[in-house]
């Protein structure tokens, strides 16, 4: 075969290829399975991150709002001598197997502080007016719900550092509110101007 023969054969090949039927009928009807998929209700998968961020945002609002309202309720009598709670109380996570889905739990320092402040709170609440007592309890309850929310988010995403920090901050807020109630009640009891 010379070059002309080659070219002719090549042209013939391309002409044959162009003559091949473009449509080919499938052996079976493929539509029913397509229809089944496209007619199914769309269930949008919520990404784990969206859930975590939404929960984190909700918790920040809850804790912020709750702490603010408690502070307002407690300082309503104009007492400006309320001591500021140490915001840097050392709270650390310690690995505890099986706790709230992740592998962390707050350490013994926090547990001790929480127990002492909690006992004091119960005593001091009795000294508050019914309205203030209700307000404080409602807001502490809100903070505790927030703690539960963060724990649930951590159960889904145990390694999330943001959530771990948020949990520590929220525990600290709870402690802070309880100590604030304690100190306000003490101040009220020992005020020298009355």
């Amino acid at each position: 075969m010379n070059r002309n023969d080659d070219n002719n054969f090549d042209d013939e090949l391309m002409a044959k290829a162009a003559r091949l039927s473009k449509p080919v009928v499938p052996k079976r009807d493929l539509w029913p399975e397509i229809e089944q998929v496209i007619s199914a209700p769309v269930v949008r998968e919520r990404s784990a991150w969206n859930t975590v961020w939404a929960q984190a945002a909700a918790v920040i609002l809850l804790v912020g709002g709750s702490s603010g309202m408690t502070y307002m309720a407690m300082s309503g009598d104009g007492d400006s001598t309320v001591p500021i709670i140490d915001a840097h109380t050392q709270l650390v996570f310690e690995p505890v197997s099986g706790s709230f889905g992740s592998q962390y739990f707050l350490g013994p320092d926090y547990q001790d502080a929480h127990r002492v402040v909690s006992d004091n709170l119960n005593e001091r609440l009795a000294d508050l007016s019914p309205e203030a007592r209700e307000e404080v309890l409602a807001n502490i309850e809100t903070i505790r719900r927030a703690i539960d929310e963060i724990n649930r988010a951590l159960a889904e995403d145990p390694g999330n550092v943001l959530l771990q920090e948020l949990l520590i901050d929220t525990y600290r807020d709870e402690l802070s509110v309880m100590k604030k109630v304690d100190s306000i009640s003490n101040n009220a009891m020992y005020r020298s101007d009355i």
Partner: protein
Amino acid sequence: MQAAMPAKSGQTEANVVALAADQASEELNWVRLAQGADTFAFEKLYRANVDRVYGLCLRMTGNVSEAEDCVQEAFIQAWNKLDKFRGDSAFGTWMHRVAVNVVLGRMRKARREQDRIRAVSDVAPPMETIADDGELRDLEQAINELPSGARHVFVLHAVYGYSHGETGDMLGIAEGTSKAQLSRARRLLVQQLDEVSDEQE
């Protein structure tokens, strides 16, 4: 009689053009309805295009059941991103692009699951003969035996008439690579068809 011929031919041509325009306009209406989540309209589009999409998938994959899966996946993907179809090209051309992407995506995935696919291909039936004419049947068979890169270019360019630019664009390769693959495909096809011819003699 002879004088009437050009007029008749002209009329036929005009009718064909008008019919094509009507079909394109009708197809665009179905697209608009389907974009509004009308599955009935989408079924119309499916019925009008499935044979061409299946033909392309079958030639690109060389396997009936894989081609069927590709067609289904392509139409499901098309449904999901129908809002991105703006009508710049015909719906059929857009569907071809979607189908090529599906075929390439599945092949990439298959390459990652090489062992499993090899096991399946051992038992997969050979591609059905899709041409009736003896010579064309031999050509189909020879195309099916080409390496995938050369086969994809040959199918898109030589069978479906896409330019090298379009072929390269669809396959994600340079235009020059498309030309090189076509040249390779032609050389391999000539060899194979020669062998077939020798065997028949």
